[in-house]
């Protein structure tokens, strides 16, 4: 999206080496994870439908943002079309519900169909780079909105479609909002675990290489084309899945679901959360869902100003996103205690020179 010049430094991509952590940190992480799990399970039981709606929305957009992060954050390709897949997933689900398909079929197709569309577009476009590629992704929501209106037999046209499904089974004793929350949360957790493993594995490494430098990727035997197609396919699959979840939570879809502005807001939320970061994706979803709520509390008639100011403020303080907050804070603390120093790798300005033995003898000569 930005520069289209020159060559990137031909450095080897940083493969995230597993960092050794002290048992104490591990324990803390485990406890933190456990606490989170408990909160996720208990929260809907005690909170109001409004809060459950917000929590469920966070799950929905976390999955949509995760897809965006796969293609943008991890693979470095700009996508301004994520909202189109969100909308398509919602429409497929709505159609399935109306037609009386079994729910699992709707779920599968809500992911498979957008994934297919995403793959086809990527097959045609993935040889492109940068802005040209971004332009093609812009076309998806731009064309998608009038197309959704045109195909009103399937989509309900501009009026949209109210789709009532996923009612809580009697036996559970849960209210609808609670039941829907659990459904989307289970989907989100499964998706996050799968994607986390994916980006930490071989596929994730090929994403990283392509993000660094496509020519280097080629020389390492990684096809940038195929990698990009894969990333786009995963992104659109997750976008479609998020569409299923969206319909489960909102119970309504219309062409407004896939407008271009949503894609832009998703990109902003992804960067705010943290590019190429799983935790950042969740934080991005929190941001996406909660900032408008907070802005509405501050002043309903100034929401654009407030959102813009918050966005800019976060970028100023945390250019690498909310996910970098602990690191930033940690960095601050560490600076005060020099004992903890030395751990962070420092950039090596002479790094490209071939290794040469140090003339140790010569240096002692002089002393």
């Amino acid at each position, binding site marked *: 999206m930005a520069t289209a010049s020159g060559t990137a*430094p031909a450095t080897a991509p940083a493969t995230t080496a597993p960092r050794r952590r002290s048992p104490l940190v591990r324990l803390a992480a485990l406890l933190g994870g456990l606490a989170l799990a408990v909160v996720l399970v208990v929260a809907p039981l005690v909170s109001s439908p409004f809060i459950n709606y917000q929590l469920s929305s966070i799950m929905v957009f976390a999955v949509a943002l995760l897809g965006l992060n796969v293609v943008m954050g991890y693979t470095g390709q700009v996508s301004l079309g994520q909202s189109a897949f969100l909308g398509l997933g919602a429409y497929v689900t709505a159609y399935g519900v109306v037609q009386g398909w079994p729910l699992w079929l709707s779920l599968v197709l809500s992911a498979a169909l957008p994934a297919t569309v995403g793959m086809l577009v990527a097959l045609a476009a993935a040889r492109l780079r940068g802005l040209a590629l971004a332009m093609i992704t812009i076309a998806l929501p731009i064309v998608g909105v009038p197309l959704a209106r045109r195909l009103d037999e399937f989509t309900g046209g501009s009026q949209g479609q109210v789709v009532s499904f996923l009612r809580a089974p009697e036996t559970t004793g849960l209210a609808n909002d609670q039941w829907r929350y659990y459904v989307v949360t289970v989907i989100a957790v499964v998706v996050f675990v799968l994607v986390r493993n994916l980006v930490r594995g071989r596929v994730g490494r090929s994403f990283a290489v392509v993000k660094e430098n496509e020519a280097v990727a080629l020389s390492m035997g990684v096809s940038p084309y195929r990698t990009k197609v894969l990333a786009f396919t995963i992104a659109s699959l997750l976008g479609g899945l998020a569409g299923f979840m969206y319909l489960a939570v909102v119970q309504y879809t219309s062409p407004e679901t896939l407008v271009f502005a949503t894609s832009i807001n998703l990109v902003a939320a992804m960067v705010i959360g943290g590019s190429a970061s799983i935790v950042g994706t969740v934080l991005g979803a929190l941001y996406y869902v909660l900032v408008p709520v907070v802005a509405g509390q501050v002043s309903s008639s100034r929401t654009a100003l407030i959102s813009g100011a918050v966005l800019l403020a976060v970028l100023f303080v945390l250019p690498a996103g909310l996910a970098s907050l602990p690191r930033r804070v940690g960095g601050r603390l560490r600076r005060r205690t020099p004992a903890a120093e030395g751990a962070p790798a*420092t950039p090596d300005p002479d790094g490209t*020179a071939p290794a040469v033995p140090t*003339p140790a*003898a010569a240096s002692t000569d002089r002393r």
Partner: protein
Amino acid sequence: MSLLELEDVRASYGHADVLHGISLTLPDNGATGLLGANGAGKTTTLRAISGMVRTTGRVLFEGRDISGLGPDRTAALGIAHVPEGRGTLGQLTVRENLLVGAYRRKDKAAVSADLDYCLDLFPNLAERIRSHAAALSGGEQQMLAVGRAFMAKPRVMLLDEASLGLAPSTARRVYDAVVRLRQEAQVAMVVVEQNANLAFSVVDDATVLETGRVALHGTSSELLGMDAVRRAYLGG
């Protein structure tokens, strides 16, 4: 008076100190080399001179303290830094690259004369005058980088790893041009070079850096006389 003087220059990236107090002197129209291992601080020293890193200590150019000035200011004073990786402007043509070098100059006639001189110095560039820099070979790009630095009509040129990634014959041609520039255009040189043979073809003396400190300084012949230096840099 010496042209360029470094007094106890220190620099750091983030929390890591890279230079621990470097002192150097370059006479008018002199040429000095910086040698040292990977990570010894050679490039950082050049960056300290041209103001690309924040430093403490003093950098004197023509007797004036220039530490704290940014790269555009030091360049305007007459320090032409040919960075590692060449830094050519890929989307601009060869000719445009050379003219960017002469951005601060108002003497149009002299600029045009220097352009001719430059193309005479590097006949390859003359052939490709309308090509985009990004389309040039590595050697041609290096020549362009040196040529662009020359177009600023500098007092001193900072040359960083000019032979990196080039075939030996190409590297030789680049250094032949550098030698000519020193002799014909009276440009002083600070040369960072892994290939000591090439370096010693230009410089009068050299400083060996080790982990950000000056380990050794001597004239070319002194250094060539030391076994350790020869072993480390001349493959002998």
